[in-house]
């Protein structure tokens, strides 16, 4: 088992003809992901490296059997692309695009809350989702991952790779790794994914990587304390970040006093989470917790 994606996931790439879409579709195919279609409005009927291109997501579902989409559409059009996937009722939409205005995401989330669509959204501004050995929907380097028992949830891309590498170095593979994205308004959040990991028999431990800004990590901690019965290892980036400055991610800005890294680490520790102070200790802590 695993969560969100597996070897039955059939992916449609929205924005397949763009340089990013084309490059990463190729990489995903090489990894073994089942890419069944591309969607590029106005280019229906063509092909990119053997993958059929359709005008709409609905056609990609009907004619190619897609059940999940990945969005590489530029920021000005990305929210619309996500809405198209939601409207088409796909199981999953992973939005890689960075730089979508917050106001657009507020609209997307409102639509998702009020519509009857079952679509789950990961991102935007994220590296995507990978279930090692089965399906890679994203831009992460596939070769660093190995199948195993550790679930990883993170706001960051490269810091997730760092965690994967460390966990793998201690001999542990991953069940599913999810980059939830660094924006203020995102699709699936920590708690949504923890709920899924709770019921995933393959997952024995979860690594939760957070950063400054917002209250998501603290809320996750409270939820873990009440509901989660697997060990959680956590690192929060931005202990040295100054107040009021945006640290790359649109969401990574300390605005009050309780969204600092220190405050979040303390809150998580109180909830029984294994918090590491140094990003170099993530793998070691996982090994300690899983007791090998």
């Amino acid at each position, binding site marked *: 088992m695993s969560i969100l994606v597996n070897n039955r996931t059939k992916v449609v790439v929205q924005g397949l003809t763009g340089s990013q879409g084309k490059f990463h579709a190729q990489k995903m195919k090489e990894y073994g992901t089942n890419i069944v279609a591309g969607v590029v409005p106005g280019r229906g009927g063509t092909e990119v490296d053997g993958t059929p291109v359709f005008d709409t997501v609905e056609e990609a579902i009907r004619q190619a059997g897609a059940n999940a989409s990945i969005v590489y559409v530029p920021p000005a059009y990305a929210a619309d692309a996500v809405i198209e996937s939601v409207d088409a009722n796909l199981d999953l939409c992973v939005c890689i695009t960075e730089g979508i205005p917050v106001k657009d995401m507020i609209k997307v989330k409102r639509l998702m809350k009020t519509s009857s669509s079952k679509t789950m959204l990961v991102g935007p501004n994220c590296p995507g989702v990978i279930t090692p050995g089965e399906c890679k929907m994203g831009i992460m380097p596939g070769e660093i991952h190995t199948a195993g028992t550790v679930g990883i949830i993170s706001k960051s891309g490269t810091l997730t790779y760092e965690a994967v590498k460390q966990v793998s170095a201690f001999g542990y593979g991953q069940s599913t790794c999810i980059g939830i994205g660094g924006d*203020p308004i995102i699709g699936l959040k920590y708690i949504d994914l923890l709920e899924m990991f709770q019921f995933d028999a393959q997952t024995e431990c979860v690594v939760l990587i957070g950063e400054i800004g917002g209250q998501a990590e603290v809320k996750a901690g409270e939820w873990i304390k009440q509901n989660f019965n697997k060990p959680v290892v956590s690192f929060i980036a931005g202990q040295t970040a100054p107040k009021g400055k945006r640290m790359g*991610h649109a969401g990574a800005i300390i605005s009050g006093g309780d969204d600092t890294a220190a405050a979040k680490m303390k809150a998580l520790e109180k909830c029984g989470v294994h918090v590491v102070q140094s990003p170099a200790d993530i793998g070691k802590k996982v090994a300690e917790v899983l007791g090998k």
Partner: protein
Amino acid sequence: MDLHEFQAKGLLRNYGVPVPDGGVASTASDALRVAKELRGDAWVIKAQVHAGGRGKAGGVKVVNSFSDVYDVASHMLGMKIVTKQTGPEGKIVRRTLIEKATDIKQEIYLSFLVDRDSEQHMIIASAEGGMDIEEVAEKNPNAIVTERINPVTGMGLFLGRKIAKKIGLESSLLNKFADVANKIYNVFADFDGMMLEINPLVVTGDGDIVCLDAKMNVDENALYRHPKIEEMKDYGELEPQEVRASIFDLSYVSMDGNIGCMVNGAGLAMATMDIIKSFGGDPANFLDVGGGADVNKVREAFKIILTDPKVKVIFVNIFGGIVRCDLIAEGVLKGSDEVPSDRSIVVRLDGTNVEEGRRILEEGAAKTGLNIVTADTMADAAQKAVELAAGEDYNPEKKKTAAKAKE
């Protein structure tokens, strides 16, 4: 992106929100001219810098004569404003806003922001205007009223009236407040605001509602659809390195330490700063070269670090995913070529094309005599960078003390 008070007030004025008459002056004689045009017998002179808490730092003065306008403006222009938000280095005042003084009967706090939790816009209001909202939250949390705004319907007059009631405004002011609050919200929403704070919004002696201050932050990601707002960007508020970084679309934040960092990915960049700190060192900057970096971007990023005089050692931490290590190595060599330096460069490369990247760096270093130190892990690299930056002063005990202090 932060707007100046006068810029935000300009937007509000265009939407029919009452703001005091005023004008911007960058010299004392300009200030005098503005005051004379405004007429009256009392004016407020306000320093235009991106920082809250200006009043306490001497950046807001009320004056009652033309000669005082001139004297106070000439003193304020060029002075350094130091507040909690600017840090110890402060901000130089290059412009002032001269406004007609307002007859204040009551001060209200009103702000709009993005609420991540409910994934909606949010209003915060309080009858205790003129004070820091953080202070009110601490001392009298019951005085703060919050409401969420439905993105489909917008704010609506009813929500304005509801807030007016909750903060205890007189009935005669309900409709007027609701109207002004809605217009302010429209500015916030139409221009993709992340935050718009009016503190204070005042009731005048004549019973009018006027915005005395305005602090606005706009979503950088939405600037493509607001070219006029983008033109308002004040590069004078940024460090020289930050200006260069913004030209090349790099995320850069200047810090006080001496270890320059070049990293890919915002999370890893923050974590790199953290690990430097955990070894007892201090980062000179946050720098994310981003996911789609090419050789030129890396070269420019590296030059920005090299031209920062406080940098003693450079720490390159790359986990190649989309960004290839060989391309990073080439960029580093090109940057060093253009800005010669004998500073040590600690390099940790991992991920895509790592061997190729290491080979390019080694060959480059052999040819140019660059002082490159390689490391396999993030921790190893951080330790080496901190040791090199400290030079002979390096004291491994400092790490322990720093860790202890944290506990």
